[in-house]
């Protein structure tokens, strides 16, 4: 016992002297050793909540990103048609037949296709729009395609996401930001989009007054290796800001939840100040919730150690981006907690904002990439009223360093308390993807939805996506559709 205590205090001493992050290399789940073995999904390699079982419904999907169910209860999966690392494929809406065969209902090139919901005979589909700008599209069962909204600002880091179709006749969707934290930088060049759209930048939803913070970087847009660029917030790359400069707000905008009528019409702002509002869903109590990915430790204004979030969306509210994290103002946060190791102290970019943001409903692990969600509505499944959330998994080391893989699982969250526990996670010594632990379990869960009866939870597993020497690479035909079924339900 004395030895245990001594080791405990020495551990404390060791941590205090350096800090693990300073001395250990990053251990992200995507930092796999190549080549990647062919995928063979095996439910036995996944630990699920006792009283439930996991089944494979479909495999060999290419970058699946969402799921919905038609009038006959058939699963219809969305294939994104895009992977980070600039692998452009075809976006597809694919019905999974009872015998496992796949029927393509629609396809397109304005990828990534990020989400879909079926309601009243129509599919409401989100074209993420890294090619032509984000779109909200309605597709009838006869294949007729109606664009409800277009030219959404999706050329940057994050895309148009969602949707959630409300009972009020509107399609709600999320729009991610162009950048990590408000400033276009060399990281956006490395992502690829700054070459295609050198004038693209974040757009505020309402007028903002800048503090005049500027950031100096190399200028990859010119051939002069010594050329430098000075860039301010909400401005194109190499455009400096001045103190007191006002950037006019407009809609559609970056980092927002917006909506459009199911019949089309103007895009309306619902709430803003998000970073990457990805998964939207109405809870059984009628409230709208959204998952949101926190800042990365990258680019001109890197931010360290903030969570991903689950927010309850209040109409008209501002949620904190680009100056707040976890509900805290970053420039005055205690202990400089969001400042990267050896990095500059984070200063605010804007002086005028609405009221401070609310506290998040729940905080997900740092870099876990909280994505799709749904709420349990049926006692047969259990956990009624709780949210089930897909954690896509970290993209370290591109987004920052981690000591262990983070995410690659499905968690359940009590929205009343923010308490969360794993519901499905790979067996093994770490919560890492199948490609890392060489098993047959989960790779990157990206969406979860209950079937129409609310008895079975479907997991859309995007497939293998690795980060090798800072190069991101997706593997086509590695996506899997899983299903969690309670014992006693066929």
């Amino acid at each position, binding site marked *: 016992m004395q030895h*245990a*205590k*001594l*080791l*405990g*205090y*020495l*551990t*404390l*001493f*060791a*941590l*205090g*002297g*350096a*800090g*693990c*992050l*300073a*001395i*250990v290399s990053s*251990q992200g789940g995507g930092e796999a050793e190549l080549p990647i073995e062919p995928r063979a999904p095996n439910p036995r390699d996944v*630990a*699920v909540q*006792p*009283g439930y079982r996991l089944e494979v419904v479909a495999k060999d999907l290419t970058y699946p990103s969402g799921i919905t169910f038609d009038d006959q209860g058939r699963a219809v999966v969305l294939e994104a048609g895009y992977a980070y690392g600039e692998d452009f494929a075809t976006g597809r809406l694919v019905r999974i037949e009872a015998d496992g065969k796949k029927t393509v209902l629609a396809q397109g090139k304005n990828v990534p296709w990020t989400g879909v919901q079926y309601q009243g005979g129509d599919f409401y589909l989100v074209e993420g729009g890294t090619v032509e700008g984000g779109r909200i599209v309605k597709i009838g069962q006869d294949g007729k395609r109606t664009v409800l909204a277009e030219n959404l600002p999706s050329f940057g880091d994050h895309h148009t996401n969602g949707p959630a179709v409300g009972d009020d006749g509107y399609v709600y969707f999320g729009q991610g930001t162009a950048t990590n934290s408000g400033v276009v930088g060399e990281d956006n060049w490395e992502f690829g989009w700054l070459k295609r759209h050198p004038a693209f930048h974040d757009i505020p939803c309402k007028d903002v007054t800048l503090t005049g913070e500027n950031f100096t970087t190399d200028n990859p847009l010119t051939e002069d290796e010594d050329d430098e660029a000075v860039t301010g917030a909400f401005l194109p790359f190499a455009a400096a800001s001045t103190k007191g400069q006002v950037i006019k707000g407009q809609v559609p905008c970056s980092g927002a939840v917006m909506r459009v009528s199911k019949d089309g019409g103007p895009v309306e702002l619902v709430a803003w100040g998000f970073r990457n509002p990805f998964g939207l869903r109405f809870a059984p109590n009628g409230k709208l919730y959204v998952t949101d990915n926190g800042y990365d430790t990258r680019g001109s204004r890197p931010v*360290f*150690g*903030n969570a991903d979030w689950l927010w309850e969306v209040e109409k008209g509210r501002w949620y904190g981006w680009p100056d707040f994290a*976890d509900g805290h103002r970053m420039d005055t946060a*205690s*202990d400089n*907690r969001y400042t990267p*190791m050896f990095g500059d102290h984070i200063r605010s970019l804007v002086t005028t904002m609405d009221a401070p943001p609310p506290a998040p409903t*729940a*905080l*997900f*692990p*740092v*870099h*876990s990439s909280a994505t799709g969600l749904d709420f349990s509505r049926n006692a047969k499944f259990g956990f009624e009223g709780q949210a089930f959330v897909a954690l896509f998994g970290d993209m370290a080391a591109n987004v*920052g360093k*981690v*000591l*262990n893989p*983070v995410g690659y699982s499905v968690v359940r969250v009590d929205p009343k*308390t*923010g*308490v969360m*526990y*794993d*519901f*499905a*996670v*790979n*067996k*093994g*010594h*770490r*919560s890492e993807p199948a490609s890392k632990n060489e098993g047959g379990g989960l790779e990157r869960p990206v969406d979860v939805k209950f079937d129409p009866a609310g008895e079975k939870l479907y997991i859309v597993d995007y497939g293998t996506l690795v980060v090798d020497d800072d190069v991101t690479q997706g593997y086509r035909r590695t996506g899997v559709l899983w299903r969690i079924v309670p014992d006693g339900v066929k």
Partner: protein
Amino acid sequence: MNKMHIVLVAAGATAVALGVACGSQQSSPPVAGAEPKLDTAELKHGEALFMRNCNQCHPGGAGGLGPALNNKPAPKGAIALVIRTGPGQMPRFSHDDLSADDVDAITDYVVALRNAKSDAEEMAAAK
């Protein structure tokens, strides 16, 4: 024991401690549903505080951005000291952030997580 001997022992012990503290291979074997038994109001309070303040870096007590907590034999006093001092990149939680009772509740919850992990490992081994 001469001075050189003391220095060598201290250096070796610190290296072991760093390995224990940072060793990424030592995090929890995830077992879904292996939740800690929370039979007191204080433990439930500790759970809620942990989820708000700690879970982001130590998900479920396992490693993530930060090191795992549930594989270390650290006594409650050491856990509380870490919370107050914020070693390395970890934020420091002052009395304005967390009261003494709050810290006690969190340390109790961390121990409960550790026990839940041990129970889950034993169950897995028995299968």
